[in-house]
């Protein structure tokens, strides 16, 4: 049934028409901009894969994150970019600082691969440690020492930025 009264009302019915065009084109442009921005910052694998069980400490005087191998200490597991690289059990049992052989071999292998792929290019030896706030110093120092021995002397600890201090580039 044709709604004559609606048609009459909408077309004005002797008054000014109340028809309005919704400006869809600027709206679509806006949506496209958002989509492009989000797609550009999207990472299918997750930009910083942080294990749910790892509770990071926070700090004020921090630096920006950098692209480097990520050594995570989650529970007793040690992971390099998500790949298992041994456990912390021998260090805890001995309660003294020691080299972690599996971690050492993986890091050394990565360093050699970098040198083969990028001949003549400087190797900066940066590694980022992602360690739970409750982990004991003996484990942290063992991982630190192992990384240094494997050719990664420039070790950084991943922290949450409290934002109080000046962030250094």
């Amino acid at each position: 049934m044709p709604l004559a009264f609606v048609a009459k009302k909408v077309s004005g019915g002797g008054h000014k028409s109340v028809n309005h065009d919704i400006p869809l084109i600027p709206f679509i442009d806006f949506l496209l901009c958002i989509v492009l921005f989000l797609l550009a910052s999207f990472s299918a694998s997750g930009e910083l894969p942080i294990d749910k069980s790892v509770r990071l400490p926070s700090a004020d005087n921090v630096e920006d994150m950098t692209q480097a191998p990520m050594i995570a200490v989650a529970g007793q597991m040690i992971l390099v970019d998500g790949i298992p690289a041994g456990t912390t059990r021998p260090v805890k049992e001995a309660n003294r600082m020691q080299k972690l052989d599996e971690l050492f071999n993986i890091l050394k292998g990565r360093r050699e691969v970098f040198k083969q792929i990028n001949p003549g290019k400087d190797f900066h030896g940066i590694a980022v440690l992602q360690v739970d706030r409750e982990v004991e110093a003996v484990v942290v120092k063992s991982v630190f020492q192992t990384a240094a021995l494997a050719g990664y002397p420039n070790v950084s600890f991943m922290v949450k930025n409290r934002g109080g201090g000046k962030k250094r580039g």
Partner: protein
Amino acid sequence: MAGIDTGGGHGGKRSVNQEIPLIPFIDFLLCLVSFLLMTAVWTQMSRINADARVPGPPDPDKELEEQKKDLTLHVEMRGEEKFQLVWKEGNTVRDTIDVPRKQVRLNGDDFSYPDLSQKITEQWGTTGSHRADSDLKRDQAVLHTDNTTKFEDIIAVIDSIYAPQRLIKLGGAEETISAFNVTFAVD
């Protein structure tokens, strides 16, 4: 609604005007925006640096007197009541300062040692070896911990060591860097 109007369709020919279905397109875009917003990683992660590259032993080919040794700040955090700041030149202790171990709780589980930050900043201002803005080297700090110290405690102390900052001039540009470079003691 958007459409393509070619003005054709005259002379008995079929009109080539087309309506573009914008509503499904907008629905699709909104779904895409929602998905991307939900899966976006909104983290504010940073790093705090430590360096295993420490100055090596003296050069045996040169006289020891010729080789000026830098002062090194040793931060002893094994005491339960206090921190100890020890300025050493080689193995010679030049100065020892005690700092009360006063932990200040921040949000949640976070904490800091503002007294330690302040004392280290003061000490570097008077005793630090590399303070000139043309000097690209940093002073060395060595952190002494026991095996059972929690990582959060280590980070709080390293954060305090990085509190003193200075300007350096690189060509025409100025940059703020930390006054210290931190490493761990092996003892």
